[in-house]
């Protein structure tokens, strides 16, 4: 059993115990059974390090999202544009999902399209730059 499988099962158990809020023995057994019975994705090219890094980035993204929210509330960002960002190498679908989640979670940026060739198209709001005429 690989480290990623263990991480996966721990996440499932965490959700189960949050949902039921019950640490009695039968509930632990049911939770374990469900966590092991739901199929795991068989092959994964990613490493545990990638997963841990992105989970950490998700935690960091929360205060950053609030910071950006206050920024666009107090200093209106009226300009918008689309930028492209390259997807990092060796990303499987789970990691790409979390990448898209991270970018879209912060209020200033939204992923508009994920390109199979390895690009995210990101829509972004920014402050208007005044033309000096």
């Amino acid at each position: 059993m690989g480290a990623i499988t263990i991480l996966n099962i721990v996440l499932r158990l965490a959700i189960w115990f949050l949902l039921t809020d019950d640490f009695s023995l039968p509930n632990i057994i049911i939770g374990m059974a469900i966590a092991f019975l739901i199929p795991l994705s068989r092959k994964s090219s990613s490493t545990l390090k990638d997963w841990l890094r992105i989970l950490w980035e998700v935690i960091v993204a929360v205060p950053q999202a609030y910071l950006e929210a206050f920024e666009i509330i107090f200093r209106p960002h009226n300009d918008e544009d689309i930028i492209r960002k390259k997807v990092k190498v060796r990303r499987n679908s789970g990691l790409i999902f979390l990448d898209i989640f991270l970018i879209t979670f912060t209020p200033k940026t939204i992923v508009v399209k994920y390109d199979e060739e390895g690009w995210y198209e990101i829509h972004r709001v920014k402050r208007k730059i005044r033309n000096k005429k």
Partner: protein
Amino acid sequence: MIDTLSYGLIIVGIIFWFWGTLPLIGNRSVLFKLHSLSVSDTLGSMAIVVGLLLKIPNEWSLLVLAIMTLAIWNTVLGYVLAYCSSSNEKIINKK
């Protein structure tokens, strides 16, 4: 102290809600509206639930789950809406 903090968070959340929802009736692009909606729906609602969490810590497990699902579903649906709104433009451009 905790009461003040929790009411503060709930008030911040409600301000976020109104701030993000009012631009919906303006005439900006769909994507621009999505940016302000992610402030109100995701971050505003999360602030309100955290405020509730401070008030009723006994129900922490369900409230934490609520915060997680709010973050995930709002963000993913925002992405889905952005994706849908942009693919049409692409098709028109190609023609």
